[in-house]
């Protein structure tokens, strides 16, 4: 009986710990959502208002009325398209490096080193180039840069997943009558599906969350939501309602993607560690 009591106590303690941690992590998100639904008075009120008297949608309404919400669309277009490009290019590159030893043994290491360059170090040279080529403030310009910047990450990750695929699976398909491209499509992709999804999610999130490239390389046409948020910080006052509403709009797509793809995400990350 005593042992059982002790066990219950331990379980309870663990549960309490989990609850405290969850609250700690969720509080900023809760606070962000709450601010977006508050009136200006409530935002500045002291003591703070934990739950607004009535949920105000005016902060969102303004964003849609002024067209600011379109910047979330820009983010979606730029991050989505560059993710697709980076995944296609990166996976084929990784396959080539793994199967045909393209670039020798160390190309992959060199490639990943490119990903470690701080964005701020390259953004101004890129800006000057883009001015010459007329790519500033265009979708193509941002998509090109995000694709290039994410490519090393995709190559590196996909290389690991492809290395784990037994070569005999490919050989079997080649002998059975498929071409290299068909093998890529029918064997490699299905075999590393979880890895593909996990990598794509991270690639998308990198582009989605980018601020520095978008800030320097956009003006008005293709400004992403991260850039748009900064417009609400004024010299005189900050529009906290708009800032938080915009931030919520920017958070939702990631929230849904991660929620729906959680299965792949977890499996993709742990792939290689535990086979099967």
């Amino acid at each position: 009986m005593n042992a059982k009591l002790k066990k219950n106590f331990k379980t309870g303690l663990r549960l309490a710990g989990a609850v405290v941690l969850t609250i700690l992590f969720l509080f900023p998100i809760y606070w962000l959502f709450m601010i977006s639904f508050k009136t200006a008075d409530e935002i500045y009120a002291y003591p703070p208002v934990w739950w607004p008297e009535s949920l105000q949608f005016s902060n969102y309404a303004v964003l849609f009325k002024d067209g600011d919400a379109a910047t979330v669309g820009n983010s979606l277009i730029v991050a989505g398209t560059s993710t697709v490009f980076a995944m296609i290019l990166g996976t084929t590159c990784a396959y080539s490096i793994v199967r045909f030893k393209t670039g020798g043994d160390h190309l992959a290491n060199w490639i990943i080193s490119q990903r470690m360059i701080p964005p701020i170090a390259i953004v101004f040279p890129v800006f000057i180039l883009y001015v010459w080529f007329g790519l500033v403030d265009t979708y193509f310009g941002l998509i090109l840069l995000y694709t290039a910047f994410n490519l090393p990450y995709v190559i590196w990750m996909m290389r690991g997943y492809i290395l784990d695929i037994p070569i005999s699976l490919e050989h079997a398909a080649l002998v059975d009558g498929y071409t290299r491209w068909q093998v890529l499509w029918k064997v490699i992709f299905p075999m590393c599906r979880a890895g593909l999804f996990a990598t794509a999610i991270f690639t998308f999130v990198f582009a989605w969350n980018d601020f520095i490239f978008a800030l320097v390389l956009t003006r008005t046409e293709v400004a992403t939501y991260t850039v748009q948020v900064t417009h609400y910080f004024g010299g005189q006052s900050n529009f906290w309602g708009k800032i938080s509403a915009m931030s919520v709009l920017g958070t939702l797509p990631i929230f849904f993607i991660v929620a729906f793809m959680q299965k792949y995400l977890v499996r993709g990350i742990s792939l290689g560690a535990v086979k099967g």
Partner: protein
Amino acid sequence: MADLRISGLHKYYGSMHAVKGIDLEIPSGEFTVLVGQSGCGKSTLLRTIAGLEEIDQGTVQISGQTVNDLAPKDRDIAMVFQNYALYPYMKIFDNIAFGLRARKVEKTEINKKVDHVSKMLSIDHLLDRYPRQLSGGQLQRVAIGRAIVREARIYLFDEPLSNLDAQLRDEMRGEIKRLHKELGKTMIYVTHDQIEAMTMADRIVLIRDGKIEQQGTPSDLYDRPKTKYVAGFLGSPSMNFITARVVTQGLGYGLILENTAAQLKMPENVSQRIGEYLGSNILIGIRPEHFSLNNESKPEDSGTTIEVSIDLVQPTGARTYVSFKIGQVTAVAELNPRDIRQNESNLTLNVDVNRCVLINKDTEFSI
């Protein structure tokens, strides 16, 4: 007509010379086993036939057509892999149908063929499952099914049984042999297991260090090995090699086994061949089963017996293996268990001198 003709084939991996000039002809419908130790180049040879490895020098012809630059898919071959190479995300049916789909076979035809093959291999009840739900033996059947459903010109097997346990291996050996009989197709089978080679092959090609050491029927290689390597490779336990000096004996020649007083009289046909070695050392190779127990000494046995003291007795049921020393060398004899009395420490053994192999000590070629 030769279904497969390989001439002057070389393959390098960087500075490693894996295949060193192989010439080989495989007649249509034959079951050929490429056998050799791991790393001897036999699997590389098989993969060059399949087109999975590029050829550095030489030609591979299938039915008279040079296929050096042909993609694997255009060579009309089917292959079974050691690790089964089944697609984990496909059901067994789809795994078997995979190759047919590549060749755009009609759906009803695919169903018919998969059905036929799966019944032939008794895997028809597994078609709805995934590979992870099957045992090793079942997986290998599926892998074989995937190959034979294709009706290719040549079937290649790359150590298909080495992942199975001993009992299953015996079973599958018979099964593959039976399939070959039923289908009558050209099959090339790679293994490091000499028992598989001996039991299955119409013809064995023994490969050593990237070259063909000897090829022929199993009994060719077993009874008339060309080199010491071949003699030692085939047979289990392997052949006993004992150094012996050639001396004159009667009208012919005899051999004095090194570090012993034992002298073996060579029969006439053997004597003719060893005359030139008179006074020098050669190797005599005696297979374990070529020893027999000499219970009552008969006059015709004179000169072909040796006295040994038993080191170790290993009964296996059907046969008993007895080890003993001949001079410095540990030798093994395979004897009838009923012949060996308990607590016996000395034996007189007959040596079947007509069947032993004599080898030039320097060149290691048989005499």
